[in-house]
């Protein structure tokens, strides 16, 4: 057969069988599990008297419900009884089914999409699934990674497979040099702005081009993380030397002879020259500026130099009414410069932007500066216990605390506000997370998505500010 895309290769390598109508059985190499979307799956297994197909493929961690204030008391430290039951249920299921779990008081605990790569549990060429839509993150390693529902979690636990049809191939190319102050988050927000939140529906997206290649693995994870926000279940990036260097020596990564064999295979995980895509979108990296979302969908995004758009200028009536609803919810007037938007809280964290590189970027802005008086709370939540430890070794915690930020324990935190960290109704937040949906960070809360340096700058200024125009610290 002719030239293949990266997705074609990953798909074919995992196809157990395929029916004439294209319905296939796909083998799953890595199954990540967290407390929110798994209890009903384990219950289903028990009710049907089924067992786990391959327990060494499963890695579990509680992250969504865990408090970020302290960890000394373990599960008993969760004040909310309903949340506590959910974490206890995960613990019990992992014990009963003999699954490896990083417990709440384990230094390796963290957001499921941070710890997989950090541990080397995510490897190139794998199929990686999790009952969580941001599983696309792991595609940064040349893996086929996507989110699944709870019924599918049960299906993978019981059969190691999923029933699927192949998606279409899309390539998003970002070419050219990235400007100063522009980060992976800005690239992906600009991509979503360009193709829309449903633009990738039905596709697997491969991100490529010189600007993507230039990103670190942390940056690539940020981009793939938000593939789902462009509607694509899976996002991925070809393997290169950086990918291989990142994995080497991680606890779950292969060693010895197996390492060499693995690397040889991993190097083939690129789209062939001349491979055909159903759709190709190209963006010029040089034109992308720091991005800020203004509405209640990630596609509602503009550059920091821009203004809140006017629904009157929108010709599509459904879109126009969506914009009106968003502006009403966000309490914003068309034409308002983005830099005039005043904030109440700042959240730096989530599986999009809570890795060491993100914290370094935010700390470099926070250093020698103070959180503005109008900001009620500015919070930094590392993605994992190991990220936290690394940041502390580098003194980033001191920088944040001196600037007036709170330094928390790892978890999902105010990305979705299932724990105690949340916005109050009407509060406005600059957040490095991935969803600005109504109420996402707390009922009635208003979320603006930005990159980590932009979030730190907003905390210092009290409103959005172009990171490229930040004055020297006094």
């Amino acid at each position, binding site marked *: 057969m002719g030239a293949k895309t990266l997705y074609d290769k990953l798909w074919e390598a995992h196809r157990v*069988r395929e*029916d004439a*109508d294209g*319905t296939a*059985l796909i*083998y799953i190499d890595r199954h990540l599990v967290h407390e*929110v*979307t798994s209890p009903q799956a384990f*219950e289903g297994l028990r009710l*049907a008297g*089924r067992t786990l197909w391959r*327990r*060494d*493929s499963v890695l579990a961690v509680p992250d*969504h419900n865990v408090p970020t204030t302290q960890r000394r008391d373990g599960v008993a430290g969760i004040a*909310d009884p*309903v*949340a506590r*039951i*959910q974490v206890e*249920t995960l613990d019990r299921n992992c014990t009963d089914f003999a699954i490896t779990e990083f417990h709440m008081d384990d230094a390796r605990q963290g957001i499921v999409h941070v710890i997989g790569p950090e541990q080397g549990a995510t*490897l190139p060429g*794998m199929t990686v699934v999790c*009952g*969580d*839509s941001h599983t696309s993150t792991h595609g940064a390693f040349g893996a086929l990674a996507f*989110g699944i*529902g*709870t*019924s*599918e979690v*049960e*299906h993978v636990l*019981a*059969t*190691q*497979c999923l*029933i699927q049809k192949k998606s279409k191939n899309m390539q998003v190319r970002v070419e050219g040099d990235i400007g100063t102050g522009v980060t992976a988050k800005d690239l992906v927000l600009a991509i979503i702005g360009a193709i829309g*939140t*449903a633009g990738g*529906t039905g596709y697997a997206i491969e991100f490529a081009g010189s600007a993507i290649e230039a990103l670190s693995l942390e940056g690539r994870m940020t981009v793939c993380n938000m593939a789902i926000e462009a*509607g694509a*279940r899976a996002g991925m990036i070809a393997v290169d030397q950086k990918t291989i260097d990142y994995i080497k020596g991680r606890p779950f990564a292969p060693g010895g002879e*197996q390492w060499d*064999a693995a690397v040889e*295979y991993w190097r083939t995980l690129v789209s062939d020259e001349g491979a055909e895509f159903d759709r190709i979108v190209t963006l010029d990296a040089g034109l992308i500026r720091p991005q800020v979302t203004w509405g209640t*969908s990630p596609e509602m995004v503009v550059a920091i130099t821009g203004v809140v758009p006017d629904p009157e200028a929108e010709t599509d009536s*459904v879109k126009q*009414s*969506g914009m009106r*609803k968003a502006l009403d919810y966000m309490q914003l007037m068309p034409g308002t410069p983005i830099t005039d938007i005043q904030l109440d809280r700042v959240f730096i964290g989530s599986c999009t932007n809570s890795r060491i590189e993100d914290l370094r970027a935010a700390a470099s802005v926070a250093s020698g500066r103070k959180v503005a008086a109008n900001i009620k709370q500015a919070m930094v939540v590392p993605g994992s216990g190991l990220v936290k430890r690394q940041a502390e070794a580098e003194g980033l915690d001191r920088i944040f605390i001196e600037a007036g930020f709170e330094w928390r324990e790892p978890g999902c935190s105010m990305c*979705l*506000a*299932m724990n105690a960290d949340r916005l109050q*109704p009407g509060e406005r937040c600059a957040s490095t997370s991935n969803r600005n*949906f*109504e*109420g*996402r960070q707390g*009922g009635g809360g208003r979320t603006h998505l930005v990159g980590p340096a932009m979030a730190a700058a907003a905390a210092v200024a009290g409103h959005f500010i172009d990171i490229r125009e930040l004055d020297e610290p006094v």
Partner: protein
Amino acid sequence: MEKFSVLNGLVAPLDRPNVDTDAIIPKQYLKSVKRTGFGPNLFDDWRYLDPGEPGQDHSQRRLNPDFVLNQPRYAGAQILLGRENFGCGSSREHAVWALEDAGFRVVIAPGFADIFFNNCFKNGVLPIVLDAEIMDRLFAEVEACEGYRLKVDLEAQSLTTPAGEVIGFEVDEFRKYCLLNGLDDIGLTLQHVDEIRAYEERRRQQAPWLFGAE
């Protein structure tokens, strides 16, 4: 899973694009370890004026009179009309469990997010994709005519309006078969145990690092 064959149901319109799963069932209710009981919290933030928490008696909360599904004319609806990108965002299957618990068996929209679409079929809920122009017309008819019902025939892959108009829709063969027969995916997959084992053996030879020491 409950079988789905023919449904003649009351239709309710939800006229906004990008209805995300956070809106369908807000996060505080995801703490449940059960599959049932999510119905009263379907569209919770839009449906009630006061904030809600799990375990509360939701019948005592203040309903938002402006939210379309609170209108008496839509009480008991089983078919929901939506707009572009319905079910986007989080993979939470709780969104489908909430719709189903509230009585909805069919959602019709010009486009669905992939994970939500897939989750529907696992729970006996039929998602139907129709062209935006047909959707515009259905929205107009539902709003104009109280008690508007549609007959959904999965076998025939058709919708019938009260005026007798028949609208065809596409559905994946395999999914249709499972839904018509109320089949459990896991049971079907386990019919291929030998093939899975054979694949696993091949894979273990080619890529031994993917397998733990067991």
